[in-house]
């Protein structure tokens, strides 16, 4: 199974090519250029560097939210365009779950936090359980589904859970002080090898989904924002 994976949900742009147990290429950029300027050129670079015949790709994996609305759409439109032109299916992966996959195999409570502004984070809580004899046999456990939460609400959930926590994601920089003040359980922060979106993790999670047959057509795929647009929110408020 050859997977082309894309994540442009946050400030980082990341693309990867993986086949079975091998990450053939991964290209991640955290720089001021827009995803529109970086994503396709990065993919092109991977194609050239690895002499990739695009028709050999089996599936396009897309990190489809939550995240920056515009960033999600650049990734989604790119994945949909690739799927359309190559006639290949897509696998949609939660941005939050993919971030948790950066810490594959850890048995602490893994807590991705993406800054969602207005004192909120896009977050979730996960862990890995060792099962069976194979060195790869981990079960991915969801403790809290991906959701936008007030940072203080998240912290109180983690306090209640009582497990050691590892945070990952760009929310760390924003909410460091609140966490230091309010979180009562032992915690740590992922280092830069795993604290931002990585398309390799998107590909790894997509492999698991592929084995369960969780494909979607390129035509139907769309981001999951977990939030209405501001205009819709204001209209609903007014109608209340």
């Amino acid at each position, binding site marked *: 199974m050859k997977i082309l994976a894309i994540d442009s949900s946050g400030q980082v742009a990341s693309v990867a090519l993986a086949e079975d147990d091998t990450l053939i290429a991964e290209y991640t950029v955290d720089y001021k250029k*827009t995803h*529109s*300027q*970086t*994503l*396709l*050129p990065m*993919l*092109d670079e991977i194609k050239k560097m690895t002499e990739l015949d*695009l028709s050999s790709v089996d599936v396009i994996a897309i990190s489809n939210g939550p995240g920056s*609305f*515009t960033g999600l*759409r*650049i990734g*989604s*439109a*790119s*994945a*949909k*365009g*690739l*799927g*359309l*032109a*190559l006639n290949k299916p897509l696998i949609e992966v939660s941005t939050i779950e993919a971030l948790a996959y950066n810490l594959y195999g850890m048995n602490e409570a893994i807590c991705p936090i993406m800054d969602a502004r207005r004192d909120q984070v896009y977050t979730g809580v996960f862990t890995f359980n060792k099962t069976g004899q194979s060195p790869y046999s981990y079960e991915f456990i969801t403790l809290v589904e991906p959701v936008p939460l007030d940072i203080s609400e998240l912290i109180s959930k983690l306090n209640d859970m009582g497990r050691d926590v590892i945070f990952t994601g760009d929310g760390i920089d924003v909410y460091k002080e609140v966490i230091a003040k309010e979180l009562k359980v032992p915690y740590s922060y992922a280092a830069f090898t795993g604290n931002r979106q990585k398309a390799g993790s998107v590909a790894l999670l997509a492999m698991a989904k592929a084995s369960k047959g969780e494909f979607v057509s*390129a*035509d139907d795929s*769309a*981001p999951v*924002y977990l939030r209405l*647009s*501001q*205009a*819709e929110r204001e*209209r609903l408020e007014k109608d209340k």
Partner: protein
Amino acid sequence: MEDVLILSIESSCDETAAAVIKNGREVLANVIHSQIDLHTLYGGVVPEIASRQHIEKVNQVINKALDEAGVTLDDITAIAVTYGPGLVGALLVGVSAAKAIAFATGKPLIGVHHIEGHICANFIENKELEPPFHCLVVSGGHTHLVHVKDYGVYEILGRTRDDAAGEAFDKVARAIGLGYPGGPKVDKLSNEGNPDAIVFPRAKMADNVYDFSFSGLKSAVLNYINSMEMKGEEINRADVAASFQKAVTDVLVEHSIDAMREVGSKRLAIAGGVASNQHLRAAMIEACGKEGIEFFYPSPIYCTDNAAMIGVAGYYEYIRGTRHGYDLNAMPNLKLGERI
């Protein structure tokens, strides 16, 4: 010579559109998914909602265009896409999809200016029309008087200093309770009104006689409505619509004809959403008739935002050798004639 087939994509505002154009002038497919009903709830286009709709529909419109044209991506020569001006989030959907398709197929990628597309819409039904000619572009976002010197070579003679003509229509329509979108509704109601009932101002710019300004006119209409309300007098909405529309039309016609006279040009085209306005068309036909000017205008389906016009403009850019890289970005403020 081998046929050149352009697959074109347009998503600059609230229509998701794709088309297939053969040899620059023949429309094999022109698919438009309009979001207008969604935005009507908000009294105007909401950029985030527009962008969300584009991503839902972009593949469907592309597939439908290819199907209707009876071709596959293999038959396509190049991919053209609107990259500006427009709503940045909306543009990015079309641009990203177009780039991915160009990358996956290895076909050339051509970024197209939205307004240049509107101008080129005139080439679809007027096979004999070729540059040089003059073109008045009037839409909800743009008001430009342009000298089309050659394919892909544009000189802007005048532009709006404030509101676009279509924007003024929307605002006046809202003020007299017609709702969104205002253009067609004002046009229709004007049939029942007296265009000379109220005299609204026609703005003239001292430093460039071909520039436009519609915000003063819009304010004059709003002031008129307010003052009538203060006096407790009922307004005649049809008279307001007709008189406002006449003021807009007079300025658009006068500037166009003056610019044509200055260089002795004998061909005038009109483009953009407001180009569908019946009264404007009639006034242009009359004025051009008097001056011995040949007047061109597209069918309403090619006046509204569509991808066919982008495919036509894309074809002439293709012939001129324009090629964009995979770093092509959406340019919300792209200038007419600018090449990035």
